[in-house]
């Protein structure tokens, strides 16, 4: 008998089954299929392998899930199925090592890989620009006026005056290639009237962007700005809260948001709480910012929530 060493199979390609030459035993990964398996963090996943030996011998099977949390080692007699929760974001390898029942002789080995998704969210507004690889950013650029601009924050648009906010979601692993949905809830009011203290509209609940404002393909390319701008594992959502009625005195937006990322039905990010507050008035020619409550957070957009009253108090 000859024990198969650890080192040679470690360089094998994902899913490649290896068998000891002296033992006609083979092990192959039957689940996930295809490889790599792609799961949201926390997903309960069943991994399976198939052992073939031309007979009906028993084997001692060891599973090892590298770099995916403390529960990384499983072993048992003919253990061909392991169900476990995916714990750590990233691209991981796992190994199935088959021993004879003496546990001294390794007779076969197979490896596979799986990805565990987690998304890190952030928000940008005034002082930043829409990313070149953000297709939804093109929609923002197209909407802005005098001149058209990639700059976020309070801008004149074809619709009125809007505050551009760009949510970015960086995927781990960066090679993640499936759609990641960007979702958002809102709680907020539009105020108008001479003092800007009359509620005109209110919104509570789902505020998920229309598809034209989204770039949910983490490996997409945007060509609008010239050349190929690839997302490289980042998804985007642009939200332009604003005001369109020019004849309503002081127009105020007070809105708090909660943004998160989803893969299928699973939430794959922390919640990101953000806000937008703006006060403007139309002087007959252009929009003018009203700075009365700037000290309380008016005319700002970014992380955290604000008081939703017209005077922010």
């Amino acid at each position, binding site marked *: 008998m000859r024990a198969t060493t650890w080192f040679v199979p470690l360089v094998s390609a994902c899913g490649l089954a290896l068998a000891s030459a002296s033992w006609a035993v083979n092990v192959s990964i039957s689940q996930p299929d295809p490889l790599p398996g792609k799961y949201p963090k926390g997903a309960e996943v069943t991994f399976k392998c198939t052992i073939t030996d031309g007979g009906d011998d028993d084997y001692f099977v060891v599973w090892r899930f590298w770099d995916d949390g403390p529960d990384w080692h499983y072993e048992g007699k003919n253990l061909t199925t392991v169900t476990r929760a995916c714990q750590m974001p990233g691209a991981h390898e796992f190994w199935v090592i088959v021993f004879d029942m003496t546990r001294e002789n390794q007779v076969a080995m197979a490896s596979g890989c799986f990805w565990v998704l987690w998304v890190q969210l952030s928000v940008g507004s005034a002082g930043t620009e829409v990313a070149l690889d953000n297709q939804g950013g093109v929609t923002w650029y197209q909407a802005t006026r005098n001149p058209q601009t990639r700059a976020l924050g309070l801008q004149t648009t074809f619709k009125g005056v809007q505050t551009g906010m760009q949510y970015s979601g960086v995927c781990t692993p960066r090679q993640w290639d499936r759609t990641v949905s960007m979702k958002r809830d809102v709680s907020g009011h539009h105020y108008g009237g001479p003092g800007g203290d009359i509620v005109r509209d209110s919104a509570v*609940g*789902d505020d*998920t*962007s*229309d598809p*034209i404002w989204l770039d949910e393909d983490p490996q997409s390319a945007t060509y609008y700005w010239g050349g190929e701008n690839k997302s490289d594992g980042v998804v985007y959502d642009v939200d332009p809260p604003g005001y*369109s009625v020019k004849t309503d005195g002081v127009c105020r937006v007070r809105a708090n948001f909660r943004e998160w990322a989803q893969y299928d039905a699973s939430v794959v990010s922390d919640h990101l709480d953000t806000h937008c507050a703006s006060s403007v008035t139309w002087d007959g020619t252009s929009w003018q910012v009203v700075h009365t409550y700037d000290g309380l957070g008016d005319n700002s957009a970014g992380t955290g929530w604000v008081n939703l009253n017209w005077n922010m108090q």
Partner: protein
Amino acid sequence: MMNRRWAIVVGVTLLTGPLAGTCPAATAEEAIAEAETAVRARAEAIAAVVALVDNEELFAVNPEQAAHAVELLGRLRAEEAVPILLEHVYFEWPRSMRGPALRDFPCAVALARIGGAAAPALVKLMAGDEDAAWLGTQVLVGIDGAAAAAARLRAAAAEEVHEERRKRLLRAAEFAAGLHPQELDSPGHAAPGTGFPD
């Protein structure tokens, strides 16, 4: 069971056979008359709704009714309404705090429903008005699909002699190339909320 069904079919055929020379002809005349009535009714309905929306006050005073009337023009594929729809293309209803989308602009949605007949006038408007490009591009993508809309805009740009108008159309073409047609009837994402705290 199958034999019984065949017996019914054969029986009905034998009974109605002698009438074959008269019944279908009468039905055809009726069908044509009904269709003519429907065409006249459609034309009258369109004329009435166009007259209704050809009124600035309606959009300001009763935007809900204006939006409904405009929607009907779209569903009737009323090519006659294209000029009046273009005139009110920025009309937004209902107003919401969401980021604007095609579905928020009833006249633009109606133009998309009318289809190719609306495209030439729309492209002309887009060439002369930067504001129209944002909406107009989405309407064209709704009509033609992204690639064909981009091609239509590039072709229009190629024929344009005025530099600024030409650039405007080329920018719209690039915008169109990256868009997907939108569901005109959709209220947007039907995403479950997380229960936003008060």
